[in-house]
């Protein structure tokens, strides 16, 4: 059963994660959905696939009025990210969805109308959540060619989408990375295969290492905290990506 857990709380400003679900059938990739709250407004980052809509919706509703969700944020166009779109819109047709302009005519195949989407330009943009400023940080080609992370300067949290993802065995079900070296073994093949561009990777590492980050939150696997954030960026910088089908 999916459950919502708070990972950051500062008055009305909160971050919560609907973390991966040990009971989910093995043929679906396990995902984390993140909720950014600021008072009576919330943004749901990577709402997930349609097969898990019911689990995500009920986990969120157990803690938060789902009507506070005003915005969806889709890091990229994959089905595990946003195929639940039509179901969310069915519940609340006024929802707005932020996504890369590149996928503006692709994602509507999952649902929504011209009014639903707010296109993010390649260079990124600021997103206001009840006055709290979030930033869509470019992460193109990691892995998707139109791809964004979401940075909260105040909470020092970077939602990193597929970057930092790890395909963990069921017994490693912690919310946070506890042992970096052991953890990163489960991230290696994912990054080598799904990430294609070493240039894009270095560019991302360079930009992201300049951000003040307490938590790096991927869409798959566990959250990196404190020193592990820098460890991850260094590890990623040194990894040869686009190399997953050799060997």
């Amino acid at each position, binding site marked *: 059963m999916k459950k919502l857990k708070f990972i950051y709380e500062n008055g009305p400003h909160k971050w919560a994660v609907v973390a991966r679900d040990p009971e989910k059938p093995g043929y679906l990739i396990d995902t984390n959905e993140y909720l950014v709250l600021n008072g009576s407004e919330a943004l749901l980052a990577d709402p997930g696939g349609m097969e898990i809509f*019911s689990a995500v*919706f*009920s986990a969120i509703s*157990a803690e938060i009025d*789902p009507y506070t969700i005003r915005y969806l944020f889709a890091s990229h166009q994959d089905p595990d990210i946003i195929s639940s779109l039509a*179901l969310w819109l*069915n*519940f609340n047709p006024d929802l707005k969805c932020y996504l890369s302009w590149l996928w503006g005519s692709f994602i509507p195949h999952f649902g929504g109308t011209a009014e639903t989407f707010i296109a993010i330009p390649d260079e990124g943009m600021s997103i206001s959540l009840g006055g709290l400023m979030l930033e869509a940080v470019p992460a193109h080609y990691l892995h998707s060619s139109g791809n964004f992370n979401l940075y909260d300067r105040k909470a020092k949290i970077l939602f990193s989408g597929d970057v930092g993802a790890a395909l963990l065995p069921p017994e490693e079900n912690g919310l946070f990375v506890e042992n970096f070296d052991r953890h990163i073994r489960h991230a290696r093949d994912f990054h080598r295969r799904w990430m294609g561009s070493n240039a894009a990777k270095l560019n991302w590492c360079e930009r992201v290492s300049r951000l003040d980050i307490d938590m790096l939150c991927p869409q798959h696997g566990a959250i990196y905290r404190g020193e592990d954030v820098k460890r991850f960026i260094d590890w990623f910088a040194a990894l040869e990506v686009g190399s997953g089908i050799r060997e």
Partner: protein
Amino acid sequence: MEEIRGNSHAADLRRVVKANEDIKKVIRISSGVNLVALNAMLIAKRSGERSRGFAVVSSELRVFSHKLDGAMSGLGTLIFELVSDAAAMQKQRQEHGHLLAIVAQGKRMRELVAPALARVDERISGTVQEIGRDWQKLSLQLNRVLQLCETGGSLARSAKIEAVYGGDMSNILKQVASRIEETVNEIFSTLKLLRTQLAE
């Protein structure tokens, strides 16, 4: 059946969400009862002999608040199931909608998708039954909680009476008893309203 397939169903999830919000509110309020009841017991202890009766009532209140906790967590579990089933229904309804769009294209198309439509219909009626059972269980539990609240209300009233004999502690005891009464009343009225809405 048509009711459920049609637009009213999205509204159904909204209705479930509304009930969920009411229940969460009540659960939040009731978590305060424990503290108040504990407080009542401590005060009764401090005031000693002068408020023997209040001590008895306040320990009954402790028992009541534990029972209320249990009943509330039952309510929480049931509404969670309902939200989850109603959300699952959204997806089935969407599939149904896609098939209906094909059906609308004429007789040949209708025949073509008939088996698919029948499969979706079957799944939908399964979920409808499930949701019906969820509502039923929920309203049974609501009745239980309402009954419990009535007990709580009369306990609070006795506590108020006993507080009169509390000597110099009288005022504090009265305040505590009133707090409990207010809380129980608030739970009672929210749930009563919810029960009426469920009956509609």
